[in-house]
């Protein structure tokens, strides 16, 4: 069987700890939201909200995305992961950094905790970056999907460097940052550069694969890639050096165009699909529909901030919420059901295939729980959205309980999958 290139999937011990850590982080995150839901009716710049933000972006989103990327490198780049040992070492390093970071913010230890935690996290991102970039060097085929992933790694480095500059500012106070411009740049390197580009790259392979739809227009991906990168570059350079209101608006329009090209690619994939939607893809396509929301809010925020046209209160918080929870979490919740059961199934059942009856990957979790989780989660998103607009603490409190319920349902399924045991074969 010469030419067989299918032994490239990484070991279970590389990928699985990321999913388990992320599941627990999601639980911790939802408890933190319940405890501090009242804060969502105020300004976003408070240590407890920064703690929630960092447990979200690092412990939940980045952790699960990094773990999934290790699994998906063979699919996206058609090559094996460069070093499993480096990936395992990096997991512990990153996990420590995340806990240190979150604890420091939550306890308000901004001067002596946050700066050192940022160094830890940055180092772990460098190790992760080396592992991915070295993997891509071995890849024979360079597609637009892989370009998205490589660009996202560079933006991740930019996010972390800007983060270190901000973290050490707590200690040495060298920035004159009255309008939070460095914080905005840090956040957007992270949102648009790291998360959005990475998700776009990986999903451009996975969505057509899961929906069984091909012959899509790659030019749309190409346009999306250049628009989002150029828009973000313009946005950050403008914020660093000029703070020109029209340039900010122009940058958002360019980013928005990129997202429109991308959504059009996803829509084509949906239209040409041969396969019906399962619970994982229902979550994922909902997430792509929701992404329109933060883009519109970003335009509104730039009008409010730069042109003083106030349309809604708390637009910055609403914008952050719609990215974190509206788009990213919906997508992650869904993609967990597309990747984790498959990874465990592969580990537990490969040896039995062809020799005895084996269950399908979707049979190793509870589909009713997964379906319920989607609806409970959407109730949380809607309630929180209304709560932030109205600055209503009661609506936010009730909404946060739906997030907690989502986290419980999600973790029941995650742990059911992780601890799945092969049942002995029934004798005929």
């Amino acid at each position, binding site marked *: *069987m010469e*030419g*067989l*290139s*299918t*032994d*490239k*999937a990484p070991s279970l011990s590389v990928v699985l700890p990321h999913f388990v850590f992320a599941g627990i982080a999601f639980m911790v995150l939802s408890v933190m939201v319940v405890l501090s839901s009242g804060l969502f009716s105020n300004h976003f710049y408070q240590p407890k909200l920064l703690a929630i933000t960092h447990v979200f972006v690092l412990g939940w989103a980045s952790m699960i995305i990094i773990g999934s990327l290790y*699994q998906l490198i*063979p*699919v996206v*780049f*058609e*090559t094996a992961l460069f070093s499993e040992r480096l990936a395992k070492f990096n997991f512990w390093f990153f996990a420590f950094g995340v806990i240190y970071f979150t604890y420091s913010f939550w306890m308000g230890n901004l001067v002596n905790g946050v700066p050192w935690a940022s160094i830890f996290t940055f180092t772990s991102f460098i190790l992760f970056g080396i592992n991915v970039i070295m993997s891509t060097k071995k890849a024979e085929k360079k597609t637009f999907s892989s370009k998205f992933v490589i660009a996202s790694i560079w933006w991740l480095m930019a996010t972390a460097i800007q983060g270190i500059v901000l973290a050490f500012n707590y200690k040495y106070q060298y920035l004159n940052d009255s309008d939070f411009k460095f914080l905005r740049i840090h956040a957007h390197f992270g949102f648009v550069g790291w998360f959005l580009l990475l998700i776009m790259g990986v999903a451009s392979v996975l969505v057509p*694969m*899961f929906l*069984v*739809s*091909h*012959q899509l227009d790659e030019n749309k991906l190409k346009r999306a890639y250049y628009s989002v990168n150029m828009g973000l570059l313009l946005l950050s350079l403008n914020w660093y050096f000029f703070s020109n209101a029209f340039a900010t608006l122009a940058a958002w329009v360019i980013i928005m165009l990129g997202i429109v090209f991308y959504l059009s690619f996803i829509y084509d994939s949906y239209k*040409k699909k*041969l*396969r*019906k939607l399962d619970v994982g893809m229902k979550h994922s396509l909902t997430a792509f529909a929701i992404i329109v929301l933060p883009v519109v809010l970003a335009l509104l925020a730039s009008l409010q901030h730069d042109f003083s046209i106030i349309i809604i209160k708390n637009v910055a918080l609403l914008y952050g919420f719609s990215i974190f929870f509206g788009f990213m979490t919906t997508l992650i919740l869904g993609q967990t059901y597309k990747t984790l059961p*498959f990874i465990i*199934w*592969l580990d537990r059942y*490969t040896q039995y*295939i*062809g*020799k005895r009856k084996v269950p*399908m*990957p*979707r049979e190793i979790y509870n589909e009713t729980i997964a379906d319920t989780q989607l609806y409970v989660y959407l109730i949380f998103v809607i309630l929180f959205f209304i709560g932030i607009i109205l600055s209503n603490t009661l609506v936010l409190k009730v909404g946060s309980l739906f997030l907690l319920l989502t986290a419980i349902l999600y973790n029941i399924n995650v742990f059911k999958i992780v601890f799945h045991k092969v049942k002995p074969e029934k004798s005929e």
Partner: protein
Amino acid sequence: MSDYKKIAEKRKEIAATLRTIIDPEVEVNIVDLGLIYNIDYDGDKRVNIDMTLSTPACPIGDTIIMNVMETVMGAFPGFEVDVNLTFEPRWKPEMVSEEGKKLLA
């Protein structure tokens, strides 16, 4: 029955056996998915199967190929089975059979 007919009959039986192998992601058998390009039977005990995967980096490629060999050898004891994995042409959704499309939808 002529040799030609016997060979054709056996190839049909082999294809029917391969229909029991299900792709765990899309939950459709590999024949209707269009992954089997050719089944060659020499009229005696030798079977050559040309097949593909939906992507060269398919994480369960090895598993599917082993499954093809084990399943055919299990159904036809004493047969020698060779699987030739090819990506020429690359698999496309257009290769899914009408039956496969119904199973997917």
